[in-house]
């Protein structure tokens, strides 16, 4: 029922119905936002990416063949936008903050109450140090809880590749966390 209903909405939106597209937006906006947030970890960035993704999806609607679900197709747009945003941000940081010492970073993330490194900061750092695809898989599959099939469609790769990236990504995160823990001790 829901899928058929969604097909109807897509069809109507393609024919120019703003009302139908608004309903599609309302149906998927929270998950699109959550996926974007998983990558950029800030609300303003997630909002902007999610909105941009809906705008792009609207214009790309005539090319949407319906092979995948609308949601999966949309999250692919969100993921691409988010990865581009991270790439731009990293490039900017590399240029602007040419060399920031590890000591300064550690001091900056210290929990003032417990006097130890904030676990969340460690996790974020470990996650964002992963290669792009591994990070995308960990976020979509583990943090967002999407299925292996969905992630493979979003990232346009095989399910085996998703499993490999997930395994390697989690392993790298573990190694990184152990290293940071040892460093803090």
């Amino acid at each position, binding site marked *: 029922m829901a899928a058929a209903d969604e097909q109807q909405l897509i069809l109507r939106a393609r024919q120019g119905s*703003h009302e139908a*597209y*608004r309903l599609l*937006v*309302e149906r998927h*906006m*929270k*998950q699109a*936002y*959550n996926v974007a*947030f*998983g990558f950029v970890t800030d*609300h303003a960035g*997630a*909002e*902007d990416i*999610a*909105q*941009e993704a*809906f*705008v792009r999806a*609207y*214009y790309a609607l005539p090319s949407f063949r319906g092979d995948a679900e609308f949601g999966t197709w949309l999250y692919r747009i969100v993921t691409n936008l988010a990865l581009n945003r991270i790439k*731009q941000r990293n490039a*900017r940081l590399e*240029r602007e903050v040419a060399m920031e010492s590890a000591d300064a970073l550690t001091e900056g993330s210290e929990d003032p109450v417990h006097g130890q490194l904030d*676990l969340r900061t460690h*996790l974020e750092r470990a*996650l964002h140090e992963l290669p792009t695809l591994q990070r995308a898989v*960990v976020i979509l*599959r*583990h*943090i967002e*809880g999407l*299925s*292996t099939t969905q992630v493979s469609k979003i990232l346009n790769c095989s399910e*085996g590749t998703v*499993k*490999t990236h*997930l*395994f390697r990504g*989690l*392993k790298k*995160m*573990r190694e990184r*966390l152990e290293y940071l823990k040892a460093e803090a001790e």
Partner: protein
Amino acid sequence: MNGHREIQLLLYEFNEGTLSGPEHQKVLSHLRSCAECSVELEAMRSVLSVVARPTTQPSEDQSTEFWQGFARVVENRIREESTPRRNVGNVLTGVLDRMIVRVWRPVAASTIVLTLALLAFFFAQRGQNPEKTDVAAVPEVIAPVAPPENGGQVSRYLRRSNALLIGLTNREIGDEEKIDLSAERELSRQLVREARSLQEQPLDAQSSQMVRNLERVLLEVANKNDLSTRSDFEMIRGGIRRENLLFKVRMAEQLHGSRGSLGGIRHAKHR
């Protein structure tokens, strides 16, 4: 070794409990006899316990009003992006374009007829009094010129310049402090070189003026660094708007398309 790898790739779903019955059994029986994979599973569980799936979603941090307004914001952004295609200015441009084509076609046709008539008159006069005829005495008229050799070049130059201007005007810059203009800079440099080559050739007055107008903006972009600041970028866009370049180039393209060159005719030069 391959068996271990195959099993390890299933550990996440095994831990999650989403494997099919036979796959679950396969992993379970492997783990009973394989210390290496059991260690991997424990290690994975330790990291998963830390990288826990959030119990609350980030979207829950936003208010109901935020979500009520979200779809409206998307709709507004879509309308904004659609606006350039439908606003009054563009409708007017379309009407003007059509009017120009309608007006100039008859004018061009009349000019050709008039010119042919004058030429016929001139040759008839020369035939009657050949010794008195002097080329310099021919009244200065707008002479027809066979399709200029540089027509294709001008047309291509205008088309590429138009694409560049549209790209610059419509580019979304979000909250970026530095804007990557490397592609635009490269294209501008090529277009400046093309413009200079065009200026060395005989161009009609309109084409020549258009090339000069465009060159100012192109030079500005061509001299930018790869990464431009927001204010620099806005300045370039301001220049394009101020000079109304998009409209002018479109008009030039239209005229060029309908007449073979910007002017299609050059002012005759008497040497």
